[in-house]
């Protein structure tokens, strides 16, 4: 066992020596990947969705991973982001005639503004929503925060469903409920033109760009004064406050920044799904994103990235597109779609039991854990000294 650990450790060191070149190669591969598959391949589609979830996971990681505020209502920010698309990128507001650099023909009814402007609106709206949801949780401790955020997520979901009966003047309703707001604009950029649903490559590069941007911001945040303040609050609130960290401001900034990332991703998913339907904003979505960052390794940026990729590939590619053809390959007439829930749950249980700290634990936590392992090994050597000669290293 200890030999195996030593071997693993050696490999880890070897890999970490080439960290930069591996990261560079991964980036280059990520950029050219869509050229290797078809324009509308299932795999490309699954990858686009997975990358959008990476942005979600990175946002939730700021709130739960860095600041230690267990948020079970993250779906609220997805909803706000997607509704920004519904409101500002379609003919939904039928009394308005606004068109700024969008794919819609000039003079079309509704508000049509450019993708980037929708994203900015979403960032503003979700940050404010994040602060408002965060305010009542400031006095609460860990698990109570979870239920209050969950409550807000559910309230916003209910309002989205019932938005058809909330008038905001002149026959205009707040949302289109379960009917959904469809006929959304497509992202449109000067010089590039409008995106099309037949060619998924531009979508991929757009979401990849967002991922790079959010990753960069996340890495800078983690090493900033604010990032250290979050970790300090997470580890010991009383000590952090007595060292002069402003509790309210720091916590609310975590909510606002985490929410803003969720909003950006919501905008992308809103455009990509071509409809904004209230039934998309369920509690299970919050749970799904939370599972990603915990499976990846709570508080670790690379963990959130890998966890999001892993779980979305399992959910959107492996189970529907790969597993379901397995029985036929073995000549069995058995429908695996009936089991997709259970397979997903089973994989969650297995991953967590095998790696409780997550796939790529945060540096601080890994240090704690390896410290424990070293102590354990020393004990093993003491106890098993006879059976392992020369094991005094």
């Amino acid at each position: 066992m200890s030999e195996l650990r030593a071997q693993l450790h050696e490999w880890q060191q070897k890999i970490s020596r080439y960290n930069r070149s591996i990261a560079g190669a991964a980036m280059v591969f990520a950029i050219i990947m869509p050229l290797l598959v078809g324009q509308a391949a299932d795999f490309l589609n699954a990858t686009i969705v997975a990358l959008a979830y990476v942005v979600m996971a990175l946002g939730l990681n700021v709130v739960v991973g860095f600041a230690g505020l267990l948020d079970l209502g993250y779906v609220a920010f997805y909803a706000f982001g997607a509704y920004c698309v519904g409101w500002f990128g379609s003919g939904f507001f039928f009394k308005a005639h606004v068109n700024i650099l969008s794919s819609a023909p000039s003079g079309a009814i509704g508000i049509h503004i450019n993708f980037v402007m929708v994203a900015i609106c979403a960032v503003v709206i979700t940050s404010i929503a994040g602060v408002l949801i965060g305010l009542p949780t400031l006095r609460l401790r860990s698990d109570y925060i979870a239920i209050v955020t969950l409550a807000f997520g559910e309230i916003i979901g209910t309002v989205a469903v019932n938005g058809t009966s909330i008038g905001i003047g002149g026959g205009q309703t707040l949302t289109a409920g379960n009917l959904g707001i469809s006929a959304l604009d497509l992202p449109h950029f000067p010089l590039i033109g409008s995106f099309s649903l037949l060619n998924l490559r531009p979508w991929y590069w757009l979401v990849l760009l967002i991922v790079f941007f959010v990753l960069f911001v996340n890495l800078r945040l983690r090493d900033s004064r604010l990032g250290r303040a979050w970790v300090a609050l997470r580890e010991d609130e009383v000590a952090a406050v007595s060292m002069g960290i402003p509790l309210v401001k720091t916590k609310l900034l975590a909510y606002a920044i985490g929410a803003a990332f969720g909003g950006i991703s919501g905008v992308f998913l809103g455009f990509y799904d071509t409809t904004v339907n209230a039934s998309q904003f369920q509690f299970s979505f919050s749970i799904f994103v939370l599972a990603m960052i915990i499976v990846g390794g709570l508080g670790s940026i690379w963990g959130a990235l890998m966890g999001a990729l892993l779980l979305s590939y399992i959910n959107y590619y492996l189970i529907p597109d790969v597993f379901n053809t397995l029985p036929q390959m073995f000549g069995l007439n058995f429908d695996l779609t009936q089991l997709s829930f259970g397979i997903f749950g089973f994989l969650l249980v297995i991953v967590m039991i095998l790696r409780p700290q997550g796939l790529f634990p945060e540096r601080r936590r890994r240090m704690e854990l390896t410290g424990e392992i070293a102590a354990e090994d020393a004990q093993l050597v003491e106890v098993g000294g006879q059976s392992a000669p020369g094991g005094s290293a």
Partner: protein
Amino acid sequence: MNLSAIPGIPFLRRYLGPWVLWLALAGLPVYYGLRDLISGYASGYAHGHPVIHHDLSQLGFNLVQGLSNGAIWALIAMGYTLVYGIIELINFAHGDVFTMGSFTAVSFWGAIGLGLATGPLGLILGLLLTLIVAMLVAGSLNVLIERVAYRPLRNAPKLAPLITAIGFSFILQNVGLLWNGGNPIGVTDLLHQGQGVFNISGVKVHRADVLAIGVMVPLVIGLNWFISSTRAGRAMRATAQDPEAARLMGINVDNSISLTFMLGGMLAGAAGLVYAMYETTVWYFQGFEAGLIAFTAAVMGGIGNIRGAVLGGLLIGCIQELSDSRLGPQWTEAVVFGYLVLVMVLRPRGLLGEETREAG
């Protein structure tokens, strides 16, 4: 946020503080009660004109229904609160254990041949047997889940068992899907649950209401007695307060935790039987919503506190029923969670406070 900085807030806090919460909780029934009395409500037609009443019987009916529905939530909420109290885990699979309890009950009473033709004595004995079986199955299932999914992670980061709980929730939902299909299925209405039993000044009490309350009350009393008076119950409380100290005192902490899961699961199984008879439908997804509501109830009452869970369950049942019949069922979820946020803001530890490690 420092609310005291806003002028007027300290004054309001000082004089209204203890009352705001109760005023808010009483708000809905008092408002609708007054409205019924003053402007009246219609109940059907006579000679082509609506019959208008000016009394409180509709409100009373809402509250009776709310209490009996809340009794089911209370049973499930106690399971959440027991488990949270002892290992501080939000047991996301608990709602699905409740579903399994329902399914077991329905399948079992079908297997022993209970039907509409069964006589009253056979029915009562059969249902008692079904209750015991459902409780044992759900309890054992809960113990099994703890053994497989939570015990290996006891020293892991705090949120790791949350994910295995979610994993097991998915697995159990899938089991339910394979067991009874994807749509809600009707259940034989063994008790004729809609039949009235008695009237209290115009408020009709149904058999289902009597069943729900009649199962809940003895179980709550029994649980309270078990936890406060038996040796095993004392061991459970000691483990909840301080597992390390309990271990040093010779208490088998693992057994105490297993026992807690057994008790929580048994209550969920009982709730499963009552739910099946009360709603006369079951489906694989029922535990999701019920679990969410019951967890809310446990938190509202003060998680870790058994009396709080019962109070929270009954309150939420009443809020739901009032909202269902007055505001429309589509708003009920928002109303319930709105109340939860209100309670959390005004009393951050729940209505009756909590009895967990961090608080003590």
